[in-house]
């Protein structure tokens, strides 16, 4: 395909879901089956288009291949902004992931949402979400990234609160929206720092300018941390992860699409996309936040009995992995994990949805033994569990392994080992709680006979997506790490010297300003250094031979360790929940304080309630008081003044002056008339008398003349 064709195809990928939204939103009620087939068909078309782009990149096999197109969107005085699309390997993968999961979720929802009162609205929102997500993926600049960033937030808000008649759902969507707002605030600051420094939103121009005239010192770190705050909010990283578990109030397919596979991965995608803009300090922050999130989510998932809540914390933990990968310089591994995770986590959520659909509860203690009733769901869920636990030959193993290797290499290069240790522990815990979930749900004896007897396998619209995703959960990694598999054709790190050469000629007002003029010399050196290291590098994540050795060693070590710890986790889980070799209840009572802390999610909500919420509510109370006393005082005061003024003008001025004048004129004329009518006797003789008298008077007056 030509560049032109690629861009038009990408545009269709963006607009087809929007079309689905518009059609179903406005005409859904009139269409047969409330228009669900419109959504499924258009998303199918979107998927086809996305796959066409994917195949093109596959054939070209060049990870630096890049198509960009757009137009001038705003031109106001000095300020200009472009709207455009950037299609490269990373985009191609994301397009397929998003459209595939979205398509399958549409299909699944046909069964899952069957008979819902707002069925057509649900499909409309799904289309809207997919459109927004495609926008994030395709945007070629920070401005439109931010616009679509907010749009997915809106879609997420609408879908979390889809069952808004439940107060918990209504609270959850507000919480998600407000928590994201905190992150987006930082994100916006980060964007604005880069925009004020370089005068452009375009990624490639920014990268080029960064090479030519890097921001200095703390400003760059803070700009990076600001951008990362967007990721903290959207990708549910600690400490803003609190919204994601609550977001499970939404319909389960929505959880699979938005809160597991795509939207929450947007933060990771954003960091991967903007990686050259982060300096080492910011990356260190990212690595720490990511690894802390990974362990935090995993430990909470251990104790949750609600199957969706447990999966939500699992998602938080896995997102922590991806984010950490960005921080430790294994960004390709992070994107790789994003891809594989999207499939197996969507599968887990849809599997959970299938179970919930069958037994009408989310509490795992009320399930059990469901493998006999729901064989397809069981097998697919099992595959996903193996994938997420990091069992070899399943996709999750390769991506997680690559991340752990990156973290280990990061530690071995003399940086901190903490991310690796936390991530490794999280990997073990992940294996444990995922098998716990599998055992409690599908194995053993049914704990609630009545629910068990009503359970049934889901219809084909629900089971087909499960099977498709199960296949992808096995094969999507291609049995190789990100550097060697198909993935390396799509994503490696940016070829910055080439980008600088291509985009660097742009006018740059920073270079002209005084304290940055000198930077030019450095920039040349920097670029040359980079060029040599790039040519030596075998693939994306390495920067030279020494590093290559380290990463190679790290890779084999990490693989052994990750298999060992995953095996350990699975074994312990089997002992505890299948063999009943030791009682989990006993551990629970013995480690009661720890259990309580985990069950209460490390008291994050309580801490926020005691500090942030209290502060905000206090501020709101103060503002309300200010409003009541000062603003209302001014308003009421001015009303009183106006009232008095009105009384004065109305009752006094108007009555006595204006009316006085009007009536006075009337009275005067009436009086004059009264006086004059006496003169008009109607007698000719009287008139004549007047005439004569007047003449006599006139004669005397004018006598002198």
């Amino acid at each position: 395909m030509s560049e032109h064709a690629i861009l038009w195809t990408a545009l269709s990928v963006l607009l087809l879901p929007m079309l689905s939204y518009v059609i179903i939103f406005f005409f859904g009620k009139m269409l047969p089956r409330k228009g669900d087939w419109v959504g499924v068909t258009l998303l199918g078309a979107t998927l086809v288009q996305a796959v066409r782009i994917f195949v093109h990149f596959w054939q070209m096999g060049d990870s630096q291949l890049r198509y960009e197109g757009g137009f001038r969107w705003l031109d106001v005085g000095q300020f200009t902004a472009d709207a455009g699309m950037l299609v490269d390997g990373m985009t191609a993968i994301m397009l397929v992931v998003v459209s595939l999961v979205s398509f399958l979720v549409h299909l699944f929802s046909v069964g899952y949402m069957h008979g819902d009162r707002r069925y057509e609205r649900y499909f409309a929102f799904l289309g809207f979400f997919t459109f927004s997500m495609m926008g994030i993926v395709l945007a070629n600049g920070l401005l439109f990234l931010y616009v679509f960033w907010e749009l997915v937030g809106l879609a997420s808000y609408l879908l979390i609160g889809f069952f808004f008649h439940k107060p918990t759902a209504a609270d959850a969507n507000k919480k998600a929206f407000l928590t994201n707002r905190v992150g987006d605030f930082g994100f916006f600051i980060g964007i604005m720092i880069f925009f004020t420094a370089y005068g452009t939103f375009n990624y490639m121009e920014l990268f080029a300018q960064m090479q030519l005239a890097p921001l200095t010192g703390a400003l760059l770190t803070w700009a990076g941390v600001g951008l990362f705050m967007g990721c903290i909010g959207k990708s549910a990283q600690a400490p803003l992860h609190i919204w994601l578990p609550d977001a499970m109030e939404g319909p389960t397919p929505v959880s699979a699409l938005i809160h597991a596979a795509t939207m929450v991965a947007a933060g990771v995608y954003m960091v991967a996309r903007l990686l050259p803009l982060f300096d080492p300090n910011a990356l260190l922050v990212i690595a720490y936040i990511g690894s802390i999130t990974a362990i935090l989510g995993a430990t909470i998932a251990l104790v949750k009995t609600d199957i969706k809540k447990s999966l939500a914390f699992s998602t938080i933990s896995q997102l922590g992995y991806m984010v950490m990968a960005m921080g430790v310089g294994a960004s390709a591994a992070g994107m790789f994990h994003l891809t594989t995770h999207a499939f197996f986590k969507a599968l887990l959520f849809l599997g959970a949805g299938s179970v919930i659909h069958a037994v009408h509860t989310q509490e795992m203690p009320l399930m059990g033994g469901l493998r006999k009733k729901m064989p397809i769901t069981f097998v697919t869920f099992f595959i996903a569990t193996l994938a997420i636990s990091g069992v070899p030959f399943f996709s999750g193993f390769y991506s997680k392994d690559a991340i752990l290797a990156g973290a280990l290499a990061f530690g071995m290069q003399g940086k901190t080992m903490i991310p690796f240790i936390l991530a490794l522990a999280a990997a073990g815990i992940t294996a444990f709680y995922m098998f716990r979930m599998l055992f409690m749900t599908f194995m053993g004896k049914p704990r609630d006979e009545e629910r068990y007897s009503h359970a049934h396998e889901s219809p084909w619209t629900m089971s087909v997506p499960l099977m498709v995703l199960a296949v992808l959960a096995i094969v999507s990694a291609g049995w190789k790490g990100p550097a060697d598999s198909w993935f390396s054709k799509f994503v490696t790190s940016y070829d910055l010297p080439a980008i600088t050469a291509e985009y660097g000629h742009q006018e740059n007002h920073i270079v002209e300003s005084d304290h940055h003029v000198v930077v030019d010399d450095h920039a040349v050196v920097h670029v040359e250094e980079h060029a040599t290291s790039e040519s030596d590098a075998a693939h994306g994540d390495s920067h030279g031979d020494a590093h290559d050795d380290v990463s190679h060693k790290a890779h084999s070590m990490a693989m052994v360790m990750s298999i060992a710890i995953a095996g350990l986790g699975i074994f312990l889980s089997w002992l505890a929940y299948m063999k009943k070799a030791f009682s989990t209840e006993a551990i629970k009572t013995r480690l009661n304080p720890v259990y309580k802390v985990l069950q209460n999610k490390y008291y994050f909500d309580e801490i926020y309630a005691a500090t942030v919420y209290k502060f905000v509510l206090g501020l709101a109370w103060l503002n309300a008081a200010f409003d009541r006393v000062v603003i209302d005082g001014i308003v009421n005061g001015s009303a009183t003044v106006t009232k008095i003024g009105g009384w004065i003008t109305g009752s006094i001025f108007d009555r006595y002056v204006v009316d006085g004048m009007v009536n006075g004129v009337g009275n005067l004329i009436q009086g004059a008339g009264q006086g004059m009518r006496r003169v008009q006797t109607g007698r000719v003789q009287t008139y004549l008398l007047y005439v004569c008298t007047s003449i006599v008077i006139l004669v005397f007056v004018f006598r002198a003349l």
Partner: protein
Amino acid sequence: MEVGLAHYLTVGAILFSLGIFAVMTRRNAVALLMGVELILNGANVNFVAFSRYVETSIDGHLMAAFVIVLAAAEAAVALAIVLAMFRNFGTVHVDSVDSLKQ
């Protein structure tokens, strides 16, 4: 004593004043018309006197003749009005004809 302009003017003025007096005081419309005749004739005396003593032309005389003719016409019209008045109001007293005032 020689008769001069002043004597004529005096006669004219007396006639005029008598006429005015009649017009103002008489209630009978016919007597009122007579007063008007006196006023006109007082003016005629003046015209002729001025013509004789001041201008020594016949302009004054001509004007006097005009006035006599005019007075005749006026008397004819006025008497017709008085007749109409009598027919409408049943009286020729001018002060009882005041329906315009009410």
